[in-house]
């Protein structure tokens, strides 16, 4: 630990001409080592992101079309676009409703698995849908939940006809999608939280047991405070990743030519107003405005989350 601190201190020292040959050598390779990655990143990621902000103030249909300045028109249009507002609300529903579901389940499973036999097997099995192509999962679930699909057929076979509904009808589809997202994603957060919980020394639990704490008290007074930093990182990750979800929903809604409005999120809607759908409409300025809204949403939510979850680090 002390070596580590010493290194950190040395790294942070601002001006140092006295760090010998090693330091000089490393300064010499700094630029050639960093420049290629940095240039590609700036040219193909940061530059288009910046141009996106500019295009969001234009009216533009892409290559060959002259850009016309549109002022705030694109953003004003967002405020009056009912489809966009549904999409925005749906994205927020995923962030918050699915988020709460995922974190509650992930915590419950983490606590449950602390002393369950086969915890590694369970963790492995819960996690694997997360790394499988969301397109493949979406298509498979779409077939599983089709009106005459396996799920409804099973429900009818055991006499639960009342429960067999059209899971993919416009009224139900978004609810089904949200459940699907919770199902696919929870395993990932189980892994993150479990890594945090495993770092807690067991004598904390032994101590609290001697004091007569029940499962919930142990969770509330030991597990949660001691994994707080992991939880806050996981929450930030969820906000960033949930707003980006695209493939899963896209595959769920069929081939995506015209998914029902009720199932659209910001990502789907942006795809449809730019290059997606049967007859792409190439409203690029408008689509860029949506992209900007997504970035603002992410920055805002992450900032709020960090502020809400800020605690003094507990060292143990």
């Amino acid at each position, binding site marked *: 630990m002390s070596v580590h601190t010493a290194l950190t201190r040395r790294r942070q020292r601002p001006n140092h001409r006295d760090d010998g040959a*090693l330091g000089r050598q490393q300064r010499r390779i700094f630029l050639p080592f960093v420049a290629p*990655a940095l240039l590609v990143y700036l040219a193909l990621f940061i530059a288009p992101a910046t141009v996106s902000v500019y295009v969001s103030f234009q009216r533009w249909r892409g290559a060959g079309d002259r850009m016309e300045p549109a002022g705030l028109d694109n953003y004003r249009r967002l405020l009056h676009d009912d489809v966009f507002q549904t999409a925005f609300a749906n994205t927020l529903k995923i962030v918050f409703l699915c988020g709460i579901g995922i974190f509650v389940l992930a915590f419950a499973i983490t606590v449950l698995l602390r002393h369950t036999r086969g915890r590694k097997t369970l963790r492995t099995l819960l996690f694997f849908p997360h790394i499988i192509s969301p397109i493949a999962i979406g298509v498979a679930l779409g077939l599983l939940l089709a009106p005459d699909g396996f799920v409804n057929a099973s429900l009818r076979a055991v006499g639960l006809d009342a429960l067999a509904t059209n899971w993919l009808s416009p009224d139900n589809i978004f609810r089904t999608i949200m459940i699907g997202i919770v199902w696919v994603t929870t395993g990932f957060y189980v892994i993150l939280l479990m890594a945090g919980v495993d770092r807690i020394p067991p004598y904390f639990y032994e101590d609290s047991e001697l004091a007569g704490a029940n499962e919930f008290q142990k969770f509330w007074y030991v597990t949660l405070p001691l994994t707080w930093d992991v939880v806050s990182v996981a929450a930030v990750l969820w906000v960033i990743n949930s707003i980006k979800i695209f493939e899963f929903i896209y595959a769920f809604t069929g081939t995506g030519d015209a998914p029902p409005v009720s199932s659209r999120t910001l990502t789907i809607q942006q*795809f449809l107003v730019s290059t997606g759908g049967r007859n792409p409409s190439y409203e690029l300025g408008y689509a860029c405005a949506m992209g900007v809204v997504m970035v603002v949403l992410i920055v805002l939510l992450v900032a709020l989350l960090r502020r809400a979850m800020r605690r003094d680090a507990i060292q143990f």
Partner: protein
Amino acid sequence: MTIKLPDSPITDSEDAAARATPPPHGPTRSRCGRRSSGPFRMLGVPLTWIWACFNVFLLLWVILTAFRNGSEIFTDPFQLPRSLDPKNFTDAWNSSDLGSGFMNSVVIVAAAATTVIALSAPAAYVLSRGQRRSSELITMAFVAGMGIPMQAVIIPVFVWMQNISTYMYDTFGWWDERISLYLIYVASSLPFTVYLLTGFFRSLPRELEEAAALDGCSSFRTFRVVMLPLARPGIVTATILLVISLWNETLLALVLITETDKYTLPQALLGLYGTMQYTSNWGGLFAGIVIVVLPIIAVYIWLGRRIVEGLTLGAGK
């Protein structure tokens, strides 16, 4: 509120393996009996098992259905396949774009992953060893990229790539949209990979570099001969995570690639899904899902622990 305890068994080490190993069960085992009587556990453990079994069931259902005759799937959903004839697989591979999609995906993913590692590893190394303020700034710039969704980048990229291909067609008579896709895959994968590898290089001891320098090694040689082999576990993990995420990526492919023979695998699966709704050869569609999923399942069975460690390492800091 700060609780400081002496001699905790696991200090905040950078070692992911230490985090991934569960705490010793020994002393607590004896109390398991009492604990399991709580209603939370009585209900929760079986429910978790049911969940896990459902995941396995879904996978098996897809694989079994892939061997069945198309129209029966909906008329008789509980029937098992009558034979293990791989006809659906050969059909899906040959008659739709899945075969070419598979090859396209393999080539694009392999090329992009290699390039990303080749660019990120040196950058991450000097950034982790950086003694200047600029290295901190650059690291921050890469980390910020993880928070920018593709949707905020994609429109200009789409137009630029259109322009590039028009220009290349006009000047050289040739361009391949798969190259455009490859370029964007590389750029968009850099933030996470640089971040992951920076964390990994930071955990390597500095003494080795000093020793190498004393022995007259140049910095470049030190990196290539000493540090790179040491960082191999980190690089392997980063590569697996890259391959998985690029293999599954679909949005950029949908936007940039228009010709069916250049489709990536997930895109080809979507195309197959579209036509199946008219031909109702559902068995072929299930075979298609298996073709998309199986490589990743194989990688997961083979290197699952690495994937889990990499994810916690990437997120745990």
